[in-house]
């Protein structure tokens, strides 16, 4: 197999090194928060979308312009390249008070020691004061002002709820921003505005406001680009180096052109892409957003320049490498840690970055999609950008942002080869996506075929129509994953009672030993599940309406197809397509629990439902109950072994849930889209009592749609076949299989192609997404002892990849153990 390790240019090597050095020099972004607070305080009664535009315009025209000497692309979302973005209007004021209102000593230990995200005393005083204002004016306040009372009470059970995060999780039209430009879109908006003004009605007043806001931000964007042009000229004057001077002057010319006009060169294309991303960050929605199918427009730009002789292949690769590095620099604060956790982390030599890396992909959960097929389906869309972006990830060994590769009958062997090499080196980079099945899933949603073929993946695994869809999965989707299915199982077993939380549910029902048949128990699970889904769907509408009322997402609306055309922002239903994602999780925990009840108590009658009930009630700690638990774990059929008896229950409950969720009314006239994903099976499991699959109270749940790793006994083929039985074309919000190979099975040229054959077979069987990690336990153990030698070790977690050394020790152990069980 060809060696793809083409050398990094000296400049890229330096940038990579610099990125390592500054990893531990991060600061919370107060610039953006000061601007928005000031603006919102002084414009309390401005109409929401105009207020948003006014704030964004102020930010674009007054923010600090940073041009680093060594960087290939200009600027950052914040004042410098390791700014940690947090959005004060979305941040619970209780968190701010908890962290910054803490004692001086504890505040310093958390935020002012080497390795911490730095917050100065001045910023601390400011944020506490600002929190006073936002307490009654943030998103959560809006939500609480319109949510039905029963929802407010349910916030805890329904998930994170409206604690206030902006939606994120969408795939706006980066291509439109780069290749059409804000300047051109502004002209259209002006025409639309002029037309409305000649015929104002009660209905189109709101559209007029939308277009006014639109135009204002276009002006701000063009100004920001020109401010960067000015900055480059100033730098050029100060520079003695003639090469650098020429480069800066060329960039100044480019910045005078882009944003107002379509990009002409590869550098301009990527820079315009970043400028749009900075706007999304300032708007507080750069949260698992996706630039979509970027190779489609970056590839032709590069090819044109290479053909014209203005760019060499090496220079193009350098630009793509710089792009991959720079796009990973936009860090969003998630989760919001307590001072306790921070102090503890610092003690162990870890920083906020590590906390973040262990829990979540730090680059804002961004995901780039490459490859695919033309709208008419007659050819693949693999080009120079597809290959060079893949090569960038492979050679730079970066874990973020995530990368999704679309696979179809046109995928060239070379792309397959680089992708497999990259995955072997960096677990889960890229994620393989099955075009045929995902397009089929999109068609089932009612998306026309030409658009269905233009899906991109955002967030972790969620497909949406690139540049055309408002897919509000994040905020509302948080209600879905987590407690839902497992809590329902608890109610069904304990008679509408949750022993962990010691509280009752809403629908009184029997206890495990009172059901007369397995069918009766299943019917009760279904009744409880549907009640939960109804409540959840209703809550989504109120969540969406919260944004519609007072928090329009202007930055996304500007470039998402349908909004400019219809005069409506995305939260008002302006996008061509609308989707509301929600994730199921603990697929195996639920499925195996049902199998155990069926097999043990009803089919084979090995123990009575009463005995099983008591074992669960006692958390397997009573006389003889450990023996029963071991029998369940070791001698009963489990999902993941291509055993229809065990897989039947997984197939039943997931279909039941998915069909019902997808059939509920979607937000903004769009569709509800169920998926299968969990990022917090360890944390989620801590709050779940024992389950019939042999799980003890507090133990982790099974991961997403994966079988329990320790119950996979027939090897990878049976595992893959079991998972393929899930209703993937209905799980249109995505869901991936997380496979692990040992090093031995991927060594040698032909072994690579066997990995491809396995992925292809999974796709033929109906699976939609595949990631794999080549886990070398010895290397991982060594990385625990000598993290400095393994900075580049990347493993796939569930929906994202993470640097192994950034994970907490507990998560590291969990990862190693699960893998070793599988062997």
């Amino acid at each position: 197999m060809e060696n793809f390790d083409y050398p990094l240019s000296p400049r890229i090597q330096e940038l990579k090194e610099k990125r390592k050095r500054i990893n531990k020099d991060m600061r919370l972004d107060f610039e953006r928060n000061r601007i928005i607070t000031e603006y919102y305080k002084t414009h309390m009664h401005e109409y929401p979308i105009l207020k948003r535009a006014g704030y964004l315009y102020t930010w674009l025209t007054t923010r600090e312009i940073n041009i680093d000497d060594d960087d290939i692309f200009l600027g950052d979302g914040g004042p410098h390249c390791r700014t940690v973005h947090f959005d004060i209007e979305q941040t619970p004021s209780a968190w701010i008070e908890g962290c910054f209102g803490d004692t001086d000593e504890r505040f310093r230990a958390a935020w002012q020691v080497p390795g911490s995200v730095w917050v100065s005393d001045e910023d601390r005083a400011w944020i506490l004061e600002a929190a006073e204002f936002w307490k009654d004016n943030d998103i959560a306040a809006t939500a609480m002002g319109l949510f039905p009372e029963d929802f407010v009470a349910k916030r805890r059970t329904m998930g994170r709820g409206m604690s206030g995060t902006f939606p994120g999780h969408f795939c706006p039209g980066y291509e439109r921003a780069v290749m059409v430009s804000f300047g051109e879109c502004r002209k259209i908006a002006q025409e639309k505005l002029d037309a409305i003004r000649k015929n104002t009605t009660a209905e189109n007043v709101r559209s007029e406001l939308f277009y006014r806001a639109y135009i204002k931000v276009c002006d701000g964007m063009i100004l920001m680009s020109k401010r960067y042009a000015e900055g480059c000229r100033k730098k050029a004057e100060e520079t003695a180096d003639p090469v650098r001077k020429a480069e800066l002057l060329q960039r100044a010319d480019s910045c005078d052109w882009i944003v107002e006009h379509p990009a002409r060169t590869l550098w301009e294309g990527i820079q315009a892409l970043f400028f749009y991303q900075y706007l999304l960050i300032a708007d507080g929605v750069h949260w698992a957003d996706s630039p979509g199918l970027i190779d489609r427009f970056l590839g032709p730009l590069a090819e044109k320049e290479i053909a014209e002789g203005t760019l060499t292949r090496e220079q193009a690769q350098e630009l793509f490498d710089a792009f991959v590095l720079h796009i990973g620099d936009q860090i969003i604060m998630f989760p919001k840690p307590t001072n306790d956790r921070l102090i503890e982390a610092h003690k162990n030599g870890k920083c906020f970055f590590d906390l973040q890396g262990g829990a979540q992909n730090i680059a804002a959960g961004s995901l780039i999609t490459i490859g695919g097929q033309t709208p008419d389906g007659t050819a693949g869309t693999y080009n120079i950008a597809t290959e060079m972006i893949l090569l960038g990830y492979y050679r730079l060994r970066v874990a973020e942002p995530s990368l999704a590769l679309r696979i179809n009958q046109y995928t060239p062997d070379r792309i397959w080869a680089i992708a497999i090499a990259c995955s072997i080196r960096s677990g889960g980079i890229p994620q393989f996506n099955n075009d045929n099945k995902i397009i089929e899933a999109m068609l089932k949603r009612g998306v026309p075929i030409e658009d269905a073929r233009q899906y991109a993946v955002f967030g972790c695994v969620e497909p949406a129509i690139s540049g055309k869809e408002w897919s509000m999965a994040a905020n509302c989707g948080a209600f879905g994953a987590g407690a839902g299915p497992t809590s329902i199982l608890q109610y069904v077993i304990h008679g509408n009672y949750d022993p962990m939380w010691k509280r009752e549910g809403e629908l009184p029902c029997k206890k495990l030993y009172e059901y007369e048949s397995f069918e009766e128990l299943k019917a009760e699970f279904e009744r409880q599940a549907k009640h939960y889904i109804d409540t959840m769907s209703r809550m989504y509408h109120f969540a969406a309406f919260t944004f519609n009322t007072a928090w329009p997402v202007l930055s996304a609306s500007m470039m998402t197809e349908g909004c400019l055309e219809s005069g409506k922002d995305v939260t008002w239903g302006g996008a061509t397509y609308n989707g509301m994602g929600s994730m199921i999780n603990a697929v195996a925990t639920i499925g195996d629990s049902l199998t155990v009840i069926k097999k043990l108590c009803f089919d084979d009658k090995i123990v009575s439902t009463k005995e099983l009930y008591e074992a669960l009630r006692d958390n397997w700690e009573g006389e003889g109950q450990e023996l029963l638990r071991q029998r369940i774990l070791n001698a009963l059929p489990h999902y993941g072994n291509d055993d229809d008896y065990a897989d039947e229950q997984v197939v039943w409950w997931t279909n039941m849930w998915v069909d019902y969720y997808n059939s509920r009314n979607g937000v903004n006239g769009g569709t509800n889209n169920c998926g299968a994903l969990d990022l917090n099976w360890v944390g989620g499991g801590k709050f779940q009592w024992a389950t019939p699959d042999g799980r003890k109270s507090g133990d982790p749940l099974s991961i997403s749609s994966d079988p329990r790793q320790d119950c996979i006994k027939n090897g990878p083929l049976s595992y893959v076949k079991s998972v393929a039985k899930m209703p993937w074309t209905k799980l249109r919000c995505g869901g991936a299989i997380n496979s692990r190979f040992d090093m031995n099975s991927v060594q040698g040229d032909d072994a690579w192609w066997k990995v491809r054959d396995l992925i292809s077979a999974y796709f033929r069987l109906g699976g939609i997404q595949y990631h794999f990690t080549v886990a070398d336990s010895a290397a991982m153990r060594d990385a625990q002892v000598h993290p400095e030698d393994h900075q580049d070790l990347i493993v796939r977690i569930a929906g994202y990849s993470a640097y192994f050394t950034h994970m907490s020790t507990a998560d590291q152990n969990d990862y190693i153990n699960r893998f070793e069980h599988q062997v």
Partner: protein
Amino acid sequence: MEYKNATGRIYDIQGYAVHDGPGIRTTVFTKGCPLSCLWCHSPESQGFGFELGWLPLKCLGMDLCVEACRKACTRGAISRGEPTKRMGTEEMVEKAELDRTKCDGCLKCTEVCFTKALYSAGWDTTVDEVYDRLMKDVPFFENGGGVTVSGGEAMSQFEFTLNLLKRLKDSGIHICLDTTGFAPAEKFLEILPYVDLFLYDVKHMDSRRHKALTGVPNELILDNARLLAKNGAKIQVRYPVIPKLNDSRENMEATADFCVSLGEALTLVQLLPYHKSGRSKYDRLGRPYRLTNVEPPPESFMEKALELFTARGLPAQIH
């Protein structure tokens, strides 16, 4: 095609057996082998009878085996041991202790052990049962993959192997037969129509050395290979490179020459560097590992060995 639902004794079926022929394959391992190679990495494959396997790592200290053992006879081969940590936990358990000198191999303990810490190496099955299991993996065979029947020596259970192959061939499955070549010539001719590719071990070209290393001489093996080649078989030669034992230049050249002599029939020569991964399996069966003094060959050595084969125009790879 007519076939008989013969009985066979196997010890494993493995999916995604990426080292047993082209594409993705599922391999059936039959039990029992007329050879006993010093480096054998599957000691459980050698005997034709059942054997008690013991993997203390998996023992949870449930005591069921102690009881079963006591009920079966009075010798008391299994007893309760000292408290030790259970795998992956801090929990102390009293794992079972097996004294093989007192064990008569009744295998009663394996019937009660949930975790298969005590297990029977090998079980009896039928052509139909194995066929049904294998056919589950058909979706993975598309790109040149299929089923490999390996051992032990599958030819030693000829009736089972032949009928299984007949059934698989009937379903259009690509079949590899992994063999030592040590079986009567007429049986090879009988099975030939059902085999797409022979994975054929050549262990030493000198018959006396061959006998010392594997327990049998090599004439029959080499003759069978020639016979198969003459009758249209496709053969992939597998040459395990064991330092000190069969890696002399002289033997390598003789092996390469032999490969050349197979002519068109030869599709590939795989050089398999010796590895130690089978060592722990000997412990599980309570048997000594005999190659304590041999280390895997260095990569540079393997590269040179490969050159020796490719210089003769042979398609060869290190595997």
